């Protein structure tokens, strides 16, 4: 559950977004889409806590896996200085991933920004299993989009949205998806990851669409393994009751939740 992975490749794939390929056998074998790794940066006391990152892909044959991260603070800044051969202390794979079976219709992947990471891994799985897949990917601008072709080489229908209109449709990825639903051009199970406001919008709109909807949440974590109760998200009222949790732990009961389970 705790392992030292070796950095194999570090590549800048978009403005401030880095693709990191690592080697470690057991993580590569055990990883399921939607699970995450809790990564220690350096050996010192600052940064102190581990940082959670979704697994963005895994290849048991190569004993390799990857993460995709955005440089957003001190920890990720330090990670961007890693070099091949460096070691990275990983806890995981952790959490509950996307449980996909049985899949009705297409798999609709809805990614906002760096939320693309777990969906790439999920896509890898679903494509492997022969599922139809449609990608909806939104970001503030084209420059902040990772080049999907490097990850989705098997081909998957892909639709883009950017806030500034620099790639795909202008607007949010949720608007984009809504267009498809309104036109009746598509149906299926929705898998999403992205900023909280995007997921909240999806959750709300889905009250009408009524598609199966699962999303991966982020919350600040300390332990990453369920021990500290630090990373909670409120249960949706339906889930409350005597003995039930009012809060789910994102690290243990999540990070992937059914849209009906949580109150965003």
């Amino acid at each position, binding site marked *: 559950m705790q392992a030292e992975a070796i950095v194999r490749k570090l590549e800048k794939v978009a403005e401030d977004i880095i693709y990191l390929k690592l080697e470690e056998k057991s993580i590569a074998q055990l990883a399921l889409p939607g699970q995450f790794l809790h990564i220690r940066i350096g050996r010192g*006391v600052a940064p*102190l806590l581990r940082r959670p990152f979704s697994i963005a892909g895994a290849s048991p044959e190569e004993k390799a896996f990857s993460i995709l991260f955005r440089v957003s603070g001190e920890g990720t800044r330090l990670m961007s200085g890693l070099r091949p051969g460096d070691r990275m202390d990983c806890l995981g794979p952790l959490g509950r991933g996307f449980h996909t079976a049985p899949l009705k219709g297409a798999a609709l992947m809805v990614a906002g920004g760096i939320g693309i990471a777990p969906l790439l891994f999920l896509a890898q799985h679903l494509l492997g299993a022969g599922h139809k897949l449609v990608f909806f990917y939104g970001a503030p601008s084209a420059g902040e989009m990772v080049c999907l072709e490097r990850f989705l080489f098997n081909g998957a229908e892909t639709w883009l949205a950017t806030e500034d209109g620099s790639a795909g449709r202008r607007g949010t990825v949720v608007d984009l998806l809504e267009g498809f639903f309104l036109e009746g051009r598509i149906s299926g199970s929705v898998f999403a990851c992205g900023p909280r406001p995007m997921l909240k919008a999806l959750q709300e709109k889905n009250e009408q669409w009524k598609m199966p909807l699962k999303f991966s949440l982020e919350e600040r974590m300390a*332990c990453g393994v369920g021990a500290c109760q630090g990373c909670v998200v*409120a249960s949706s009222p339906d889930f409350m009751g005597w003995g039930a949790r009012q*809060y789910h732990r994102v690290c243990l009961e999540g990070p992937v939740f059914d849209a009906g389970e949580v109150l965003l």
Partner: protein
Amino acid sequence: MTTLSTVLGPLELSCPVLAASGTFGFGEEYSSMLDLSELGGVVVKGLTLEPRWGNPPPRVVETPAGMLNAIGLQNPGLEGFLEREMPRLRHCGTAVIVNINGETEEEFAVLARELSSVEGLAALELNVSCPNVPLGGITFGSSTPILQKLLKKVRPLCRLPLLVKLSPNVTDIAGLARVCRDEGADAVSLINTLKGMVIDTAAKTPLLGNKTGGLSGPAIRPVAVRMVYEVFQEVNIPIIGMGGIMSTEDALQFFMAGARAVAVGTANFVEPRIMPQIISGLRAYLEEEDLEDIGSVIGAAHRET
């Protein structure tokens, strides 16, 4: 053979390293990563009479060499604990200490009484220092008369060894420890978290859902060591030391300051195997220094050189 066993009044531990309350859940989460029986004991998450849902998120935030938490004592309540956690804990192979919390003296009293008759518990830790709840918590540990009154009520009802966990957010930690000793507590746990705040400057509001939280981790270690040193010097009561322990060397600072046992909190999040590592580090230290037991290190920094 060197021994790590240590004695705190009526509480005997085979090893002087405990998991600190709130950082190790009910012992289950980490049990796949380490052998609980290697530890001196586990202090489980703060327990209240009724179940508690705790504070709204965000509940944790990293700070320089530390973290703030404002969990707010989320826990299943006494009944839930006894039904769902205790059966497993009883057989976990290490001493189990329950950290108890009340909003009123009466709640503390009921918890102490009820838990005293539960089989398989090693001790109770009276938490009078939680900075993250609106009622009770730290208020019981901020004034000597209030603490004294609480102990007068609870001590007679508690048939287990009774530890009192004190708050560092006070002017006179030794004065509070003195009350603990006078009222028959068996040991004091030093220290709980320092009350702190981080402001989210983009949102122009305190970052934590609870606004303030408790500061733990290496950042507070110098304060913790000082308080252990001070209480050891001024009050004759066994001490469990904690606050920012990340290594054998850190643990030794606490022993030398006067702690008879130490607890590891935040470091578990960083390095889940830190406790066994510290324990073997202590063993190696005793051997290198040619000492028979950890007792010969305790309070060493007080001896005149």
